[in-house]
């Protein structure tokens, strides 16, 4: 039993880290008022970039850097769509996910990256790798960025009341551009971590809906970084438990076990809705375009 517990505990951070990183990226984007449903897509390109770099002989940390860049590049596309062209946030985000799914599947098969094992990120301390220890630092950095800097003040103003930000001389489009690209980099890193540190192999379904779960997590966390990390740990616990239970040989249907993260997501969403205080936590201008009135 104690083996079971230890095994479980040691695996939690690895499962929690992708959720935490993706949620932090989403929080930066959404606090600027951009509804980001493209998380799954950013994670996919990040995950593929990580595998691709590793298969081409890069060091694991450099591969993760590639994931960040890949996420940011797709973020640029998303930013042009929603911040510059003012396309509907929901449609843009969904389109981006489908595009990314097709893109990674195409590249992976063209480059024959499927099902090839890679070396991966090695543990440095307590069986955990360096990214795990970076997560709390990044969380602090995001908090500091949002709450203690002029950039963060402007970013939050754009997400709460773009009209007021505009009147204060803040470039709403530029702020949203920056928030999307920075956020996309973090979400790309989350995807890269999935392949480079966790699965160490590419299959098209490697992200497996974790981007969507991260979106639910952000709602559950009411757009607050620490609560998002807490939620990520909660989901990490659930995910880390699945292979352990299967390994004990307990008679639970495998597909039911694999369903639990999604069930938990639904549960969390319903719980958040029933509690009902979320309209106050959600950035007031989330999903809204800002167009300066030409005529009163």
């Amino acid at each position: 039993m104690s083996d079971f517990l230890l095994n479980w505990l040691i695996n939690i951070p690895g499962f929690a880290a992708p959720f935490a990183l993706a949620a932090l990226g989403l929080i930066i984007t959404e606090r600027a008022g951009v509804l980001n449903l493209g998380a799954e897509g950013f994670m996919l390109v990040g995950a593929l970039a990580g595998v691709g770099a590793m298969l081409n002989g890069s060091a694991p940390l450099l591969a993760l850097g590639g994931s960040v860049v890949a996420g940011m590049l797709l973020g640029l596309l998303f930013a042009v769509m929603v911040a510059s062209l003012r396309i509907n946030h929901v449609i843009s985000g969904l389109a981006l996910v489908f595009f990314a799914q097709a893109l990674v599947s195409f590249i992976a098969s063209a480059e024959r990256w499927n099902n090839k094992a890679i070396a991966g990120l090695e543990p440095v301390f307590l069986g955990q790798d360096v990214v795990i220890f970076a997560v709390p630092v990044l969380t602090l950095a995001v908090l500091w960025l949002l709450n203690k800097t002029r950039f963060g003040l402007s970013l939050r103003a754009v997400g709460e009341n773009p009209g007021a930000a505009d009147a204060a001389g803040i470039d709403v489009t530029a702020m949203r551009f920056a928030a999307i690209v920075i956020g996309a980099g973090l979400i790309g890193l989350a995807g890269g971590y999935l392949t480079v540190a966790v699965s160490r192999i590419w299959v098209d379904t490697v992200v497996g809906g974790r981007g969507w779960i991260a979106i639910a997590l952000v709602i559950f966390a009411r757009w607050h970084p620490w609560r998002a990390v807490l939620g990520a740990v909660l989901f990490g616990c659930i995910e880390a438990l699945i292979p352990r239970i299967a390994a004990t040989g307990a008679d639970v249907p495998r597909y039911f076990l694999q369903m639990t993260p999604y069930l938990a997501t639904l549960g969390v969403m319903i719980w958040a809705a029933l509690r009902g205080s979320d309209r106050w936590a959600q950035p007031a201008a989330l999903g809204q375009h800002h167009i300066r009135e030409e005529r009163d």
Partner: protein
Amino acid sequence: MTDTLALSSVSKSFGGFRALDTVDFVARAGEVHALLGENGAGKSTLMNIACGLYAPDEGHVAIDGKTVRISGARDAAARGIGMVHQHFKLVPAFSVLENIMLFNPGRSPSEVASKAQDLARQMGFEISLSDKAGTLGVAEQQRIEILKVLLAGARIVILDEPTAVLSPEEGRMLMGLVRKLAEAGSAVILVTHKLHEALHHSDRITVMRGGRKISETTPEGMDPASLTTLIVGEQIIEKPQLSKAVGPIEVELENVTLSGESGRKGLVDVSFRVRRGEIYGVAGVSGNGQNELSAAIMGLSFPSSGRIGMNGLGDVSKRGPGYRRRHGLGCIPVDRYSHGLAGRISVTDNYAVNGAMAGAYGGWGYFKRGLAQAAAREAVAAYDVQGVRSLGQRAGLLSGGNAQKLVIAREFEGAPRVVLAHSPSRGLDVRAGAAVHDRLRAARDRGAAVILISDDLDEIMLLSDRIGVLNSGRLTREFKAPAERGDIGAAMVSHE
């Protein structure tokens, strides 16, 4: 003395419409300059040019005698121009300090905090920097706005309709503050349509009409009548006319209680009765339960307790808007563009939606467009809706006054026996407002029970046969017209 701000021969067009036509305007340090005019006279456009939001097509802007090109809000602030918008530009979720910081980038929070406190004290008020802006009253929010632009170094302060959202008492305090600003050396521009503010609180008055400057004068030797003539080009003076025949009770609210949105007052034990052939005015400073009262009467929210009786129907408090409208309720909602009309569909469709729901233009499966169009054409003529180039034109293109006339045409089509009008002349100019008032009086005179909710005390005084005062969600006092303006004003702001 040089002019702190001078706009010379400024013109601006929007898609062929000439909003400003060679207008000259100056503001001097130490003076309060009132800019008067109806909606659409060009006041806002002129001020948006002064603060850099629009670039003029012709003419130029000079500050301290030097011609400048203002490239945007930040540039205007750097040049000492501060605009306090009618719709505040505050972030409700931010603290007062964060809101001030947002407008004063690059300074340390502690420096801004101490300067803000000092300045507030000099101006004669206290502020709490840690409060969330969204939890403050409108008068406090406005002071934050003023503080914000002053801290950014504004020497030219533009106040756009600053008293529109204030109680009479708060308005008086603001005018005192405005005078202090001028005495401290600022050039203050007061954009307003309230005559008494221009007459009693300014040093100079500029009147605009139809995009042109009509007159620049001083308050001495002017009176409300002569100013009105300048503003509208003719004299429109409305006089109260009380009801001649009051009938039985048509609608009755009994102890209606309704919780508002979180953090806002709802309604508490509100009771009143309105009879046929009378206008019942509900006065109060905005935000004291008006929206909730209007929603409760329209059927958009159901009270948590109490009853709303309509003659012959019993309690309708749990009935939806469809039921109430079918049984004789007509509503002129406060925001005509979001609850009154669907801006993107045609004038005909907007007008015909009531009749179509009642089956006047064909049954369930077929809409007789010809019939609806004929009815709409008739209504547009009867209610004098101007600016309808075709009946297929989008309703959102109508000006405020004409959009309101279209709402009234539709709502009065079935001769409703209960009429709810919520701030029906808000944002309308004197002429359009008078036309709306005439329609309400006509509805009363044919026997409707009219409930008028308005934060404009003048409008309440002008129309109402009886007046109830809404204060913190309670109906605290009732008056019978003619009543003393001062008594009603006092009841609006008292804290009993």
